[in-house]
């Protein structure tokens, strides 16, 4: 059974979700909606992957959904971080710096240490090292939560095409030439590299 291409749907989902969540007002609204920012790349990736998998008769399982979601999340995190850095470089710095300077100007002379400290902190968080750390954290969070959302999306989307037993059984639409006569049984997994299988 052919597996659909993983790269195309995840790349499209990651780019779209990364761009949408980076739009200032829209991104804020999405954060209020049960952190949709986190969930969007995984769900979108699985929807696209599921669309590509259906003609092949490939059953999208929770594990596939988690993998698709994770890769989509990585792409979304990278896209989001690149857009943020570009935004900071083009428009963000000047406008924000002016606002911060205006706020700090209101401090009394004996509070100048606080103004200097805030400026130092902001400068370091906008440094190259700070941006790399932010990119890594954002990508990790996107990947983790998109893996979860992708898994859930695969569970929900996959349940519509499966038989009552769920699991690995897959029933393509009636009339499809690829309709199997017997349920698909996955091959016996190879022995674990970390010792014998079974529960802990």
């Amino acid at each position: 059974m052919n597996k659909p291409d993983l790269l195309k749907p995840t790349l499209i989902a990651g780019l779209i979700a990364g761009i949408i969540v980076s739009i200032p007002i829209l991104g804020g609204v999405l954060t209020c909606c049960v952190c949709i920012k986190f969930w969007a790349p995984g769900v979108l990736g699985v929807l696209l992957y599921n669309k590509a998998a259906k003609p092949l008769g490939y059953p999208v399982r929770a594990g596939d959904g988690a993998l698709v979601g994770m890769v989509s999340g990585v792409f979304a995190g990278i896209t989001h971080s690149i857009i943020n850095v570009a935004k900071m470089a083009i428009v963000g710095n000047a406008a924000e710096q002016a606002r911060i300077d205006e706020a700090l100007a209101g401090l009394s002379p004996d509070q100048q240490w606080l103004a200097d400290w805030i400026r130092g902190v902001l400068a370091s968080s906008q440094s190259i090292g700070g941006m790399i750390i932010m990119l890594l954290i954002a990508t990790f969070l996107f990947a983790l939560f998109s893996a979860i959302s992708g898994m859930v999306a695969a569970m929900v989307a996959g349940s519509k095409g499966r038989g009552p037993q769920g699991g690995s059984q897959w029933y393509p639409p009636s009339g499809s030439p690829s309709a199997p006569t017997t349920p698909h049984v996955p091959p016996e997994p190879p022995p674990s590299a970390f010792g014998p299988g079974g529960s802990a």
Partner: protein
Amino acid sequence: MALLESAAVEAPVRTGRRAVLLAAALSVPLLLVILPPLLEHAGLAAAAATIREAFHPFCHQDPERSFPLLGTTLAVCVRCTGAYGGVALAGLLFPLMPRLVPDPDTRGGRLWLLLTLPGLLHPVFSKLGPLSDAPWLRGGTAMLASCALALLLCRVVAAIPAARPFPLEAPSHEQA
């Protein structure tokens, strides 16, 4: 036939070193959330600000809705802290109860998703009025939802078959 069906549905669950790695990975977000107050307390304000800034796109970070620690607040709000805490908790719980978590591809797995309902509904009902907006309820419902989902993810990862390190030799039945 029933055995065949159960074999098709039930994938073997592997724990051990993989579970330790998974638990470590799942606890990273919670550690990052707790780190800024500790770094500020140690005089590393710039590093703390970088981590806070990294969480800024994902959380409103309102100090009034965040847990206090060492005179300042955690990097995210109570609800987000609960969500990250639930993920970390799942990493610790899964090795203790791998068989209690259903296979996500079965009906049991889909029923397991009902555990996320309190976390999804609380933000709505607390805004509309019927439910309290107490911090413990915000954090607790988020923790339950994220823990349930992360346990399913652990189940998926634990069911991935381990790769053979180096299959250099052909199987014995082919040699004969």
